[in-house]
């Protein structure tokens, strides 16, 4: 199969979907003239024009709110947040409007709106341009949250998100944009809400997503060399969480570890650990292990930034401890 980058995979998804349905348009800061700050929209305005690929004022609140309004009036907007960190600017529009409008109005409207949010640590971008904030949205009924780890899923999940009649947050790790991988051409849909068992194993279950999933895969190989067979699960969607796939694996391996780049406290790992403790305690042979960032903003200096990033070795070491 041909290989393309994560960024090209999202571009392909956008092109295919916009060709299929003229109700789809995209707006955000620096996307038409510049092609997106990570180049992820390059070529789209030439294909679809600057009405459908629309540069906006630097007004995240109005961009998300206008996406909500346009969705209510029959369009299928895709909104680019520039950096996931700026979701905070538009938080009322996200959690009071977009997430609740369908329910609050008794199902009178759908909310086919996708927010694309580049997140994660990259090149010392510091505290306000490096965050992984996906867990906030897991706490909000009415939203769906997807978070791909590779180019094929990036395409398949974006296409599914665009076709979904519910509001979807699409987190894309900035460090993944240049990553190359095999991506099916044409129609390729990854179902929302379905985790992927990337590698089968019997000794422990490691659950992860996004950039960290790639570290987990590396760790899996190293662990295999040391005689530990880890089952690796890529969540791909964190709301709704695919509890079934995680529990099925846990019933087999009896040990659970969750790895994410986001702050450990109150993270996705906390929710998965709580679910396992509530419903699968009898199966567990060891305490649940969570790996996440320390409780601190992402610092600027590379000398400090490295301490908030999870490395492959950290995962290997934690897995070994768990299996000891």
């Amino acid at each position, binding site marked *: 199969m041909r290989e393309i980058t994560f960024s090209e995979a999202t571009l392909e998804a956008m092109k295919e979907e916009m060709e299929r349905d003229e109700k789809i348009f995209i707006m955000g800061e620096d996307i038409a003239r510049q092609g997106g700050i990570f180049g992820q929209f390059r070529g789209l305005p030439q294909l679809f024009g600057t009405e459908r690929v629309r540069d906006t*004022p630097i007004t995240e609140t109005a961009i*998300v709110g206008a996406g909500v309004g346009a*969705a209510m009036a029959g369009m299928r907007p895709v909104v680019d947040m520039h950096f996931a960190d700026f979701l905070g600017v538009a938080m009322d529009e996200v959690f009071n409007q977009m997430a609740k409008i369908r329910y609050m109005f008794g199902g009178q409207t759908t909310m086919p709106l996708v927010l694309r949010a580049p997140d994660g640590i990259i090149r010392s971008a510091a505290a306000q341009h490096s965050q992984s904030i996906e867990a906030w949205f897991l706490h909000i009924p009415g939203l769906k949250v997807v978070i791909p780890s590779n180019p094929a899923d990036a395409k398949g999940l974006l296409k599914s998100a665009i076709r979904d009649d519910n509001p979807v947050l699409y987190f894309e790790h900035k460090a993944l944009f240049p990553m190359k991988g095999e991506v099916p051409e044409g129609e390729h849909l990854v179902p929302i809400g379905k985790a992927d068992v990337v590698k089968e194993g019997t000794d422990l279950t490691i659950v992860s997503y996004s950039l960290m999933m790639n570290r987990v895969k590396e760790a899996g190989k190293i662990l295999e060399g040391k005689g530990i067979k880890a089952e690796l699960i890529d969540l791909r969607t964190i709301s709704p969480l695919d509890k079934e796939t995680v529990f099925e694996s846990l019933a087999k391996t009896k040990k659970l570890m969750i790895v994410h780049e986001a702050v450990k406290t109150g993270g996705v790992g906390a929710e998965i650990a709580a679910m396992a403790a509530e419903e699968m305690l009898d199966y567990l042979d060891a305490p649940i292990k969570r790996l996440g960032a320390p409780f601190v903003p992402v610092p600027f200096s590379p000398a400090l930034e490295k301490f908030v990033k999870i490395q492959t070795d950290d995962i290997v070491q934690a897995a070994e401890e768990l299996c000891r």
Partner: protein
Amino acid sequence: MDKLNSKVVKYFYTTMVRIRKFEETINEYFLKGEIPGFVHLYIGEEAIGTGVCANLLDTDFITSTHRGHGHTIAKGAKVKYMMAEIFGKKTGYCKGKGGSMHIADFSVGMLGANGVVGGGYTLATGAALASKLQNKDNVSVCFFSDGASNRGTFHEAINMAAAWKLPAIFVCENNQWASTTPYRTTTAIENIADRAIGYGIPGVIVDGNDVFEVYKEAEKAVDRARSGGGPTLIEAKTYRIKGHFVGDPEMYRTKEEVKKVMEENDPIVRFKEKATEKGLMTEKEMQEIDKKIEKEISEALKFASESPSPEPEELYQDLYV
């Protein structure tokens, strides 16, 4: 006013009386403890929603506020489903999930009341963007008040709508009160409409208690928006007769102040005077409408009280498609 046809004049009176009677009934039943939640009344401001919506079609959109009954009725929603919603019944517009602060009727372009002050600007702007992208000639009206005019969303949305020449109309109901705080203590300028210059769009001030004047200015703004001329900011000067919410002890003003406005500036009384003076409607016609509305409201009340509450299994319905 010469151009006004009798249908529009009748709509003015019918709609204003419908809003007034509906809200008086809501007030009464809220105080009796039969309505859950919070209720915010539009009494005294009826001429604005009525005068603006008289220019709109079902295919046009409006966004409303926590004080939204008037806009909803003026846009053409049915009072029986509104009443049922306010009573928390499954026959209501939102199947009892919304209540007074979250009534919507998408079938007539009413995109929802909003519990967040200043929450509607960006939604109306987005609906107007959708019209533009779909090459439709429908318009979107955002109702808000002086309190909401100090939200950041005011700036972001009006700037965006102006920059993109969207078919949006921003209608400020300056009722002098931001919840319990007077307008002049929170806002340095005399007129909200003066801010229009900062966005390069027209800003007009209108007597919000004169339905004829509101209608006339809104007509210009709607025509302008429909023909691709972009947004207008209309400031309708009015006064909030009732407290911020039903049950508000109103420590912040005197009873005399309110009484004086009601005696001198009730929009329904002013309509009657003007309509009679100009021979637009007779006393008899108005009485017939009064009777019709009385009946309609009491039927709505009966419908709401006799309707069933939502079933437990409806809790998760309409959360996701």
